[in-house]
C-alpha cells in the first residue's frame, strides 16, 4: 500500500499556518467532555499533557517512574536548537529547515521539518516565560553555542543540563494543571496494551508497578510519547527503563512502525569498562565546540601517555577529513570516522576502542575557568566514571547507541494509521530522517507537545462524539485478560537464565551485526539468531516472585520479550534498505567510506505492518518528495 502523510501542499512557508487555519476546532465548552490519554511525560508527553489540560480537555497522563520529572529527557545535556538568529550569523527558519533535511540525509518529510523549524522560536519564548534558566551573557541576553551539522550558532543551553531544565519547565506546567484538576497523573504505571475498538484507539491497559494490579483506562484519543528504543542494543545512553514496549504493543494492535533501522550512534560516549556494565554515558556533543578528536598517527604511540605524543604525530582525523565542519561534523559521520580509526588499529584505551577528545588547545585559548564554566558538570561526570581528569589529559571516547530516528508512523497531524492514536517525540518517526542533528530532539519533543498536538488533536476530536466507548466495553476486559496471560506465561517458564543474560546476548548481536556498520550477511546472521534466541528466552528465562507486587524482574522480562520481537523487525528493515543513509550504514553501499544513498529506489519511509510473531511483516511505502531542498549528496567536506 502507498501511504499518504496528508501533508499540506503549496508554498512550504505557508503550509503550517494554512493547515492550522483549516483544522476544525472544538468549542471551548465542549472540550471538557473529551478524555485524552497521554502515555509518557517526558518533554513531548509532559508538554502535551500540560497544554491539552490547559485548553480544557480532561487529561490522564502516565509514566513508569515515580514522578513525571524523571523521564529520560532529563538526561539531555547539550542544548536545544531554534532559528532565532540572535547572534546575527545568518540563521533563519529556512536554514534550520534546510540543515535538518540535509542532516537527515533526505529521508524526512519536508512539511513536517518546516513546521518544526517554524515553531522552534516559540519554544524558546515559552521556556523563558516558564523560568527556564538558559545561559545568558552579561547584558542579560540569551547565549548560544554551536552543534554538529550546522555552521551557525543556534543552540540554547542551560549549563550541561539543558534537558533537565526544559523537562522541569514542562513538569512545572504539568504540575500546575494537576493542581487545577485538568490533568490526572498516574505514576509508576507501565502501559502494556493499546485498546482498539472497531479500528479506533480507545484506551490502554497498564500495570500498576507497585501493586501489580492491571488497570485499563478509556479515552477519546490516546497519545504515546514514550521515548526511544535504542536499549535494544542493551548498552546505550538511555535510562535503564527505556523500552520499545509501548510502541511495540501499539504496533501489535495495527500501528505501523516506520524506519526502525534508523538508529543514531553518538560519537562521544565514555568507552565500556567491563562486562558487568549496565549502561553507557554520553558526553555532550557541545564538547566538540572546544574539544578536538584525534588518535595517534603511529601504532607505536598507542601505549604512550597522550600528552607525550607530539602534535605532528597526532591525527586530527575529523579536521583532516572534513575541513569545513571539522570537529562539528554530524554524528553519523563522526561516529563512523571514530570506528574507522579504531578498525585501523589506532584506537586508544582498553581493547583499542577509543579516540581522544582533547581540550588542551581550547584551555590554552580561553583558559580552564571558561572551559569549566561551559562544561564543568561533564568533566565532573567523566572523572567520576573513569577516575581521569579531562582538564589534564584528553578524554577517551567511543560511539554508543543513543537515539532512535525511527518510530511509529504518523501523518502530518501526528496521528498513526489507527484513528485516535497520536504519537509524539522520539516515539514517532517524523522529522529526523535517517540521522538526527544534535539539539534537535529536545526541539522536536517540545514542538510536538506545546505547539503541534494542541491543534491537530482538536482537528480529530471535532469529528468524533465524546465518550462513545467506556472502560466497561468488553475489549477492555479482553485486553486485561491478555496482559494477565502474558505475565503468567513469564512466571510459568521457571528456566535457568536471567533476563539480563538474555538482554546482554541480544544487545551483543544487535551491536555486532546491526550497529554502526551493517551488511547483508551480518543482518542475515541476526535474522536467524534472534528468533532462535527468542525461542530460548520463552523456554529458559527465570522470573521469580509474583505478579502482584513490585517486581523489577518481571518488568525487565516483559520489556526484553518485546525487544526480542522488535529487534527482528529492525534487522529486517535494515536488510531491505539496500542503500546507506545517515545512521544506516550498509558496507556494500559506500563511496570511500561515505554513505551512498539510492534515491531512485529508496526515497521513501518504510512503514511495517505486524502480521504475527515470527511472521513476515508487510511493507507499506510513503514516497518522499523534495520540492524545496534538492536531493544532493550530503557533503561536510
Amino acid at each position, binding site marked *: 500500500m502507498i501511504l499518504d502523510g496528508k501533508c499540506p501542499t503549496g508554498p512550504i512557508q505557508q503550509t503550517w499556518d494554512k493547515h492550522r487555519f483549516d483544522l476544525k476546532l472544538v468549542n471551548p465548552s465542549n472540550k471538557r467532555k473529551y478524555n485524552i490519554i497521554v502515555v509518557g511525560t517526558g518533554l513531548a508527553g509532559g508538554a502535551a499533557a*500540560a497544554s491539552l489540560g*490547559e485548553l480544557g480537555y480532561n487529561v490522564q497522563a502516565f509514566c513508569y517512574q*515515580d*514522578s513525571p*520529572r*524523571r523521564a*529520560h529527557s*532529563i*538526561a539531555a545535556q547539550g542544548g536545544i536548537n531554534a532559528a*532565532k538568529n*540572535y547572534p546575527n550569523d545568518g540563521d533563519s527558519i529556512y536554514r534550520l529547515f534546510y540543515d535538518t533535511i540535509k542532516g537527515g540525509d533526505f529521508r524526512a518529510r519536508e512539511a513536517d521539518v518546516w513546521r518544526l523549524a517554524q515553531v522552534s522560536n*516559540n519554544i524558546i*519564548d*515559552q521556556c*523563558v*516565560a*516558564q*523560568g527556564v*534558566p538558559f*545561559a*545568558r*551573557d*552579561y547584558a*542579560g*541576553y*540569551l547565549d548560544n553555542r554551536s552543534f554538529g551539522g550546522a555552521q551557525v550558532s543556534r543552540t540554547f543551553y542551560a*549549563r550541561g*543540563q539543558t534537558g*533537565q*531544565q526544559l523537562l*522541569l519547565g514542562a*513538569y*512545572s*506546567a504539568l*504540575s*500546575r494543571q494537576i*493542581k487545577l484538576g485538568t490533568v490526572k497523573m498516574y505514576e509508576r504505571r507501565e502501559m502494556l496494551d493499546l485498546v482498539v475498538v472497531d479500528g479506533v484507539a480507545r484506551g490502554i491497559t497498564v500495570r500498576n508497578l507497585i501493586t501489580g494490579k492491571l488497570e485499563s483506562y478509556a479515552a477519546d484519543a490516546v497519545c504515546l510519547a514514550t521515548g526511544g528504543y535504542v536499549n535494544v542494543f542493551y548498552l546505550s545512553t538511555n*535510562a535503564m*527503563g527505556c523500552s520499545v514496549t509501548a510502541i511495540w504493543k501499539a504496533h501489535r494492535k495495527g500501528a505501523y512502525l516506520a524506519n526502525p533501522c534508523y538508529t543514531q550512534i553518538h560519537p562521544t560516549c565514555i568507552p565500556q*569498562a*567491563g*562486562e*558487568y556494565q*549496565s*549502561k553507557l554515558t554520553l558526553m555532550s556533543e557541545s564538547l566538540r565546540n572546544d574539544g578536538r578528536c584525534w588518535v595517534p598517527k603511529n601504532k607505536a604511540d598507542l601505549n604512550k601517555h597522550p600528552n607525550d605524543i607530539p602534535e605532528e604525530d597526532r591525527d586530527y582525523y575529523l579536521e583532516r577529513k572534513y575541513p569545513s565542519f571539522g570537529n562539528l561534523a554530524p554524528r553519523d559521520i563522526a561516529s563512523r570516522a571514530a570506528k574507522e580509526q579504531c578498525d585501523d588499529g589506532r584506537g586508544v584505551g*582498553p*581493547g583499542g576502542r577509543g579516540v581522544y577528545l582533547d581540550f588542551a588547545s581550547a584551555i590554552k585559548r580561553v583558559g580552564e575557568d571558561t572551559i569549566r564554566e561551559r562544561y564543568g558538570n561533564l568533566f*565532573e*561526570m567523566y572523572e*567520576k*566514571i573513569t577516575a581521569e581528569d579531562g582538564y589534564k589529559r584528553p578524554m577517551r571516547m567511543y560511539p554508543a547507541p543513543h537515539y532512535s530516528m525511527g518510530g511509529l508512523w504518523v501523518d502530518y497531524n501526528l496521528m498513526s494509521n489507527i484513528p485516535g492514536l497520536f504519537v509524539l517525540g522520539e516515539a514517532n518517526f517524523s522529522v529526523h530522517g535517517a540521522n538526527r542533528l544534535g539539539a534537535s530532539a529536545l526541539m522536536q519533543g517540545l514542538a510536538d507537545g*506545546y*505547539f503541534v498536538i*494542541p491543534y491537530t488533536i482538536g482537528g480529530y476530536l471535532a469529528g468524533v462524539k465524546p465518550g462513545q466507548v467506556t472502560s466497561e466495553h468488553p475489549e477492555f476486559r479482553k485486553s486485561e485478560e491478555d496482559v494477565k496471560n502474558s505475565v503468567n506465561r513469564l512466571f510459568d517458564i521457571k528456566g535457568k537464565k*536471567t533476563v539480563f543474560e538474555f538482554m546482554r546476548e541480544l544487545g551483543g548481536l544487535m551491536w555486532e551485526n546491526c550497529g554502526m556498520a551493517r551488511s547483508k550477511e551480518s543482518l542475515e546472521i541476526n535474522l536467524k539468531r534472534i528468533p532462535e534466541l527468542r525461542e530460548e528466552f520463552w523456554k529458559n528465562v527465570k522470573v*521469580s516472585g509474583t505478579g502482584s*507486587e*513490585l517486581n*523489577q*524482574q518481571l518488568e525487565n522480562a516483559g520489556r526484553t520479550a518485546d525487544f526480542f520481537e522488535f529487534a527482528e523487525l529492525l534487522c529486517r528493515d535494515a536488510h531491505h534498505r539496500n542503500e546507506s543513509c545517515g545512521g544506516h550504514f550498509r558496507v556494500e553501499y559506500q563511496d570511500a567510506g561515505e554513505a551512498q544513498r539510492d534515491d531512485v529506489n529508496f526515497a521513501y519511509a518504510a512503514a511495517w505492518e505486524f502480521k504475527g510473531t515470527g511472521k513476515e511483516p508487510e511493507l507499506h511505502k510513503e514516497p518522499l518528495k523534495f520540492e524545496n531542498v534538492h536531493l544532493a549528496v550530503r557533503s561536510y567536506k
Partner: protein
Amino acid sequence: MSEHHKTMTFTLIVWRQKGPNDPGKFETYTANNITEHHSFLEMLDCVNEDLIKSGREPIVFDHDCREGICGMCSQVINGMPHGGEKRTTVCQLHMRTFKDGDTIYVEPWRARAFPVIKDLVVDRSALDKVVQAGAYISCHTGGVPDGNAILVPKGAADEAMDAAECIGCGACVAGCPNGAAMLFTGAKVSQYAVIPQGRAEASRRVKSLVTAMQECNFGNCSNHYECQASCPKGIDVKFIARMNREFIKAQFA
C-alpha cells in the same frame, strides 16, 4: 577490561522489607568479583544476579538514568544518603571509593514523609505535591513575549540555575534529622524569586509552598545543614535563608 583489574569482595548488610506493613530487617550478602570500575548499582546488579540464580528474591531499588540526573536512585549507604561522596548520587558512586573486604550498610531513605514501599524503594510523591502547590510560573502555552524581551542579568540567571540543579531525589530530607524539605523547597522558591519572570507570583508562591510542606508531613528546620551535606548536586543552604526572607516579606505583601 575487567581482567586487568584485581577484584574485590564486600559484605553487604541490606535492609529488606516486603511491603509498607512489613517490619523489615537487615540481611547479609556477599558481593564477589567487583572491580574498581563497578558503580554501586552495578555491584548490586551482580549481587541480584547471584540471588536470582540461587532462587532468592533480588533486592529492589529505584534507579533509571544511572548518570546522576534523574534523581530516581535513593539509598543510604553506611548511614549517609548516596554514600556521602561529595556531589555524587548512588548511581555514580564507584566501588573504587571502598576498600576490598569492607562491610557496607545499605538502607532506604528514612523520613516520615517517605514511607517505604519495598526494600530500598520509598514513596516520594510528597515532593511532587510541594511542586504542585505552586513551584511554577503560571504562564500559558503560547502568547508569551520574545525570549529576549525581558533581560535577565547573568548573575540572576546563574543563581536561578544553581537552585534549579536540584534533581528531586530527596536526599536532603533523608539526611535531615527532622525529615525537613527546606532545601528542596527553598531551592524551588529561590529559582523563581531571583528572576524577573517569577517575581509577580513570589509571595503567593512562597506561602503555598510552605503550607504544602507542612501538610506533607515534612519536619521543621533546626539549622543542622545536613541537607546541604547530603545533596548530590551541592545545592546551597543559602536558598533556605532566601526562602525565609521571601516568607517574611510575603506576610507584608
